[in-house]
């Protein structure tokens, strides 16, 4: 640093970046607070500002051209990138141990970005049937209109994925900790099937969050989140994220031309060649997000970033409270069954211990001995639990899936998805556990 400047210098660059530990060396609590965020360079503002702006001034015409051509990094328009949203994106990538992430207006939008980047009309994919009901509808109905066919399978036998494979299948999609059934999938054999088939495994990790489960560490290639749930954590903000592991070889056998062939939507750019291990994210952002427009708002990104800072401590309490409530219900004379993988009597308890050692989440289902009518009465009689269609709030939530989130499905699909007519879903929040038990007890009575 002894060189004498020959002309006026730009503002001091500050200290050069210190050598950081290799990715993975920081703990998840540290990443939840720091990843992607550093003090705002001009003012020193420590917390991430909300960049509530649609667009960004170019330095000159050449800079503008470079930006539009993706030849340099920078901001053009908040439909594509925004500095607040970018902090959340990098944080999501760090928390999941991925290479890159792109956020979207909702989990559904993130899912759309993933599949639009993967599939051509006529392509197919395989999905677990044990999914959030909205995903089943998106895959089974709306995607069909785009020429994409989803084959649903019972995921509790991994061989079912193998049997459903066709030459046109381009992905396998699962929720490892499934919504709403308290089901945990055996990931390893499913990863092996996807590897053998040369197709990416996509995991919706919304219910577990990266605090409880990190799909990429087990071999997943893409991870989807509804950040609306535990990540934002307070029921404030819609959002979604798509995270790429950076490890999938898109060029292996020419089956992913959207990644390996020159893209006419981007003046002949070849995304995998140009951006390498974050090429999928770049394509999802600069083509799917650009052309369909489901961008996350900077304000929602801000609330989600703030929520994530306390994710590890919140998840610990969510899991602890869920365990207390599940055991209470399991012992309650009016309760027929409880499906929570954290309970020792759950058929998924061993899988939960293997894949979710920190806990099996805080969303589970149960059924009442007197069936459907009693379930309806319970949902209406609670005073502390909120009757609404969300999960992962600080507040405890209660829902009758058959009449709400899974309403668009057939009876068969509802049963298969663990959302039969007698099923009640809880999302256990952060209130005093005894108060939750007292509320359920009075409502059950």
């Amino acid at each position, binding site marked *: 640093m002894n*060189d004498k400047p020959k*002309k006026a210098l730009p*503002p001091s*660059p500050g200290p050069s970046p210190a050598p*950081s530990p290799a990715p993975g060396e920081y703990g998840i609590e540290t990443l939840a607070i720091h990843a992607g965020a*550093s003090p705002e360079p*001009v003012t020193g503002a420590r917390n991430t500002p909300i960049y509530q702006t649609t667009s960004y001034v170019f330095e000159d015409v050449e800079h503008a051209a470079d930006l539009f051509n*993706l030849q340099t990094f920078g901001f053009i328009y908040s439909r594509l990138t925004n500095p607040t949203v970018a902090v959340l*994106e990098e944080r999501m990538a760090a928390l999941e141990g991925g290479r*890159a992430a792109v956020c979207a207006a909702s989990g559904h939008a993130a899912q759309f970005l993933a599949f639009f980047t993967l599939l051509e009309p006529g392509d197919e994919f395989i999905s677990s049937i044990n999914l959030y009901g909205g995903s089943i509808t998106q895959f089974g109905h709306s995607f069909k209109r785009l020429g994409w066919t989803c084959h649903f399978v019972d995921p509790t036998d991994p061989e079912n994925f193998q049997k459903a494979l066709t030459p046109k299948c381009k992905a396998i999609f699962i929720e490892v900790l499934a919504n709403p059934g308290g089901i945990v999938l055996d990931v390893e054999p499913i990863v092996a099937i996807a590897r053998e088939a040369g197709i990416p495994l996509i995991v919706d990790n919304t219910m577990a969050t990266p605090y409880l489960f990190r799909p990429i560490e087990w071999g997943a290639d893409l991870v989807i989140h509804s950040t609306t749930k535990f990540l934002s954590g307070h029921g404030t903000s819609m959002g979604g994220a798509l995270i790429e592991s950076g490890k999938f070889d898109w060029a292996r056998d020419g089956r992913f031309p959207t990644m390996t062939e020159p893209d006419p939507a981007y003046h002949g750019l070849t995304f995998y060649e140009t951006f390498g291990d974050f090429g999928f994210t770049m394509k999802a952002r600069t083509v799917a997000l650009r052309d369909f427009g489901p961008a996350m708002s900077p304000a929602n990104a801000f609330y989600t970033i703030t929520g994530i800072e306390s994710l590890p401590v919140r998840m610990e309490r969510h899991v602890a409270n869920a365990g207390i409530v599940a055991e209470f219900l399991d012992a309650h004379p009016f309760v027929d069954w409880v499906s929570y993988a954290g309970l020792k009597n759950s058929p998924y308890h061993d899988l939960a211990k293997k894949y979710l050692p920190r806990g099996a989440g805080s969303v589970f289902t149960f059924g009442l001995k007197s069936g459907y009518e009693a379930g309806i009465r319970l949902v209406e009689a609670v005073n502390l639990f909120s009757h609404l269609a969300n999960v992962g709030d600080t507040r405890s939530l209660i829902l009758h899936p058959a009449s709400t989130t899974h309403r668009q499905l057939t009876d068969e699909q509802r049963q298969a998805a663990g959302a039969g007519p007698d099923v009640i879903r809880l999302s256990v929040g952060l209130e005093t556990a005894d108060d939750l038990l007292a509320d359920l007890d009075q409502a059950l009575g």
Partner: protein
Amino acid sequence: MMLWIVIACGVFALLYGIYTSRVVLSASPGNERMQEIAAAIQEGAAAYLNRQYTTIAMVGASPDWVRPSNFAMKYLQRKGYRVIPVNPGHAGKDILGEITYARLRDIPDKFDIVDVFRTSDAAGVIADEAIEVAADKGAQVLWMQLGVRDDAAAARAEAAGLTVVMNRCPKIEYGRLFGELGWCGVNTGIISSKRRKPRP
């Protein structure tokens, strides 16, 4: 400008440190001796902070503006590097304001880094040419692009005193280390409570 160049030199030094320590650490289980070696490499990386690497000879630079090499060349130019294109198919032609040369030895000026923007198969020959002209041209670093790896060529270059980086893009690494890469959602792996002022 000079200050920025110095900082940029640090980037390469750091990368070298990280790269080399990974190679060393993966070569055998991390025992005490290995940790000593890793510490020495960190010191060596710090020493590189005072070096000046400002000129890059880019082998395989393309005049086609949609090619990745053209992207990287233009980006690095705007960050203050001089990038000299080397490409026998375009010798004598202008690429982004620089004359293109057929071979490294044809470049009349000195250069610090040889950036191999070719396939792994072609990297060995270029590495040998870089070793051959290194003393004459002042080249210090052999840098093989993202996806390019030739361990034997790397070993020869290191034996000849060159610093070797493989399977990395200088544009992406520059963006990663100075925060720009995070703007498009990439996990830079950098955690810092320091205020990073904007660059020119």
